[in-house]
């Protein structure tokens, strides 16, 4: 008998729902992306390479990827601490704080961008204080990192939170009864257990940071070669009717997104294997 691709299910409507899924995914995601790829690959190869390796483009990659990686790393540390205090302690206002974590998700990114720019600008009330210390945040790469930290925080917190809840009190009790001190318990038991979740959170925050636009452009100052991020460069190229340049950079970003998603998947699989999925407890 021929092997069936679809396992029959007692639920009716498979044809309809699957058809809709394919149609929806194609029209909303695949089609525009395919158009982008075709447009980019239509550019002669040598010109494409030239566009991708343009000095301004490379500087923007460095800023986008560097700032995103740094912001994700900062978030991995502080997001973990936030998640820890939300999961482990009971304090007044905990639920409110828990809700506030999602604000960067919900807020239009332009709003957070303007808010950050206002606070950190040399005349803003944090900016003036930092200026005394000789640190300028707005219109420098530091500002980009600050914006990306704000945007990326919920990704880390929301990834780590369920994993931390999963670390049963039993495990820590067991380690403690076996003679392990607090630091040892944290390093040998808690950290390894939540590592996959933390890695997922880091990768998500990183991916989001690379693509972030709205919150960054107001605080970065957008100086070419200095504080210009790749998504902004695409917009600039579009405004200058440089469609080839925009398509080439878009294609590059798309490829990077794929790599990111692939990495996230690998990380998750690794975590599941390590924690022994299947025999759940």
């Amino acid at each position, binding site marked *: 008998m021929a092997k069936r691709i679809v396992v029959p299910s007692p639920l009716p409507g498979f044809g309809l729902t699957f058809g809709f899924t394919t149609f929806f995914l194609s029209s909303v995601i695949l089609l525009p992306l395919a158009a982008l790829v075709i447009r980019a690959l239509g550019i002669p190869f040598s010109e494409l390479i030239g566009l991708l390796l343009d000095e301004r483009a490379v500087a923007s990659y460095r800023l986008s990827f560097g700032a995103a990686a740094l912001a994700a790393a900062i978030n991995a540390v502080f997001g973990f601490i936030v998640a820890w205090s939300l999961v482990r302690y009971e304090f007044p206002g905990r639920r409110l704080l828990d809700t506030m974590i999602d604000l960067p998700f919900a807020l239009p990114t332009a709003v957070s961008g303007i808010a950050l720019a206002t606070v950190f600008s040399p005349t803003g009330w944090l900016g003036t204080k930092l200026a005394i210390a000789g640190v300028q945040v707005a219109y420098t790469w530091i500002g980009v990192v600050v914006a990306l930290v704000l945007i990326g925080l919920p990704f880390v917190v929301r990834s780590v939170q369920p994993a931390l809840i999963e670390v049963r009190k039993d495990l820590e*009790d067991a380690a403690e009864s*076996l003679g*392990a001190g607090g630091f*040892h318990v944290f390093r*040998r038991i808690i950290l390894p257990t939540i590592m996959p979740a933390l890695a997922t959170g880091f990768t998500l925050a990183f991916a989001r940071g690379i693509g972030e636009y709205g919150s960054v452009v107001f605080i970065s100052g957008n100086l070419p070669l200095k504080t210009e991020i790749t998504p902004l460069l695409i917009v600039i190229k579009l405004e200058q009717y440089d469609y080839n340049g925009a398509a080439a950079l878009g294609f590059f970003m798309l490829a990077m997104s794929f790599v990111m998603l692939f990495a996230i998947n690998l990380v998750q699989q690794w975590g599941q294997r390590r924690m*022994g999925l299947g025999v759940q407890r």
Partner: protein
Amino acid sequence: MSIALDQVTKRYQSHPVVNDVSIEIQQGEFLVLLGPSGSGKSTLLRAIAGLVEIDHGRVSLHGRDVTGVVARDRGVGFVFQHYALFRHMSVADNVEFALRVRRMKRADRLERRTELLKLVALEGMDDRLPAQLSGGQQQRVAVARALAHRPEVLLLDEPFGALDAKIREELRRTIRKIQQELGVSTILVTHDQDEAFAMADRIGVMHQGRLLEVGTPDELYARPRTRFVATFLGAANLLLGYRRGSALRFERPGAENVTPREIVAVIRPEEVELTTGKVSKDLTLVGSGVVEELQFAGSTERLRVRMPMTGTMPATPDREGADGSSWLLDASRTFPEQRANPLAVGQKVTVSARRIHSLPTPITSFTAVARDQANVEALRDSPLLAALAARMQTRITIRTTRTASAPPGMPVLAAGPGAAGTALWNLAHGASQVFVLPHGAELPARIVVLPGAEAGVGALGVAASLLRHVPAESVLLAIHEAETPERERAAHLRVLLDARSKALLDHGLDLRTELRFGDPDAELARELGMQANSMLVLGLDSLDDRETARLKGLLEGPTLLPVLIVRAPDGAG
């Protein structure tokens, strides 16, 4: 002494989950803490391991007071219900965890690990991850891990709870064997009585945070001291029985001149004899009933006999299958018995008992006494009495007729005008305790015990009985009149302390003790006024005028509170 607990108390949000537990466990002993879920047994175990901080009391391991010592320095082995294995570590790393923490050398670790895995029959599993093992194997790893650092105390928290019956049986045997081989003092927590019977040297039964009774399995089964233990350890019929001299009858006495002594009789189903003919002389007649249910249960036959409430009376109020006029008695028979005398559903049988154990409980039943039906029902349904009866699994009967003697069980009266007189009359006519309730009284938050001299032991026994079921603070009050000579004071104090230690011994009850000097009535009033919702347990040495006046003040005065009066036994004083 391997493990010693002294008045260990743990509260969550001021509600005690472990209440005043004291016990000592010998070197190499296997103690099973048995109790329903929520009885505080797991919390107690965690307190011993140091995983839970206690609010009061002391924990000693091998003579070392470890109350303030953190878990990692107590050196106990702990096994959790859900194994709590480190899932990212191999079996080897799990087992060696405690050794690594102690910076043991690699070769020594390997040797110890091999030895341990052999002990739990998991040789060669070193490199597996916990996820690759079955539940039973995981728990074996957990046991090996807990034993790695050679703890002198092993604590197991429902270790078989997540396993199926066959594996459970096997693991039970393994653990018992290991425990005996190593001679490690062990406490196991479970809610499964079969498990307790199978493994324990001694069983401690916990209920509502208190350690009710401790004893060997057969001791606890044959001679329980409390209703709870009698029914929690195996099936039991609890009946109200009436003793006159050496004769025991189960028929409820009518209005008689002399009040018989009421007891709570425990009759195990296997001690029930069902006959259709005459009852043999060496058996105690219980009554007669009709077979309602016959059930084949493998090696035995289980029967339920419907008994009319008019004859015998169950001691517990909400027995399964009971209605207003009849109740169900459990019996079981072996097959030889069944062959010799086959029975059928609907058959009328005479019920007798081969062996009867009477509970040493001071409160057998309550009898609400009032002049008319409306008042007696109000008294019966008052919140305090209803709550007490439900918690203590004690029956409330009612009586409205005037009789020549006090009712059996504890008479319950309404406070107010005339209450002191009625209370004294009951005490003089056969009752050994009287309970006087103000209208609408609630469960007390504090119980003050003023024991008296001769009545002290009885009063403390009653107080212990109450306190086992009521999560109330308890205070033992001793008042010395200012002008009492020194010598008498000492004698008085000795009586008090004797009564207290007897209460501790008999009922596991420990009370905070307060000594006061001054006018007895004023001091008592002061103590009772310190907190609303108090209750008084009063030991009454004599029924003289002075006591009468005091009772009048307590039972008829402007501020009323529940008072339980315990009379000194006959012949005393």
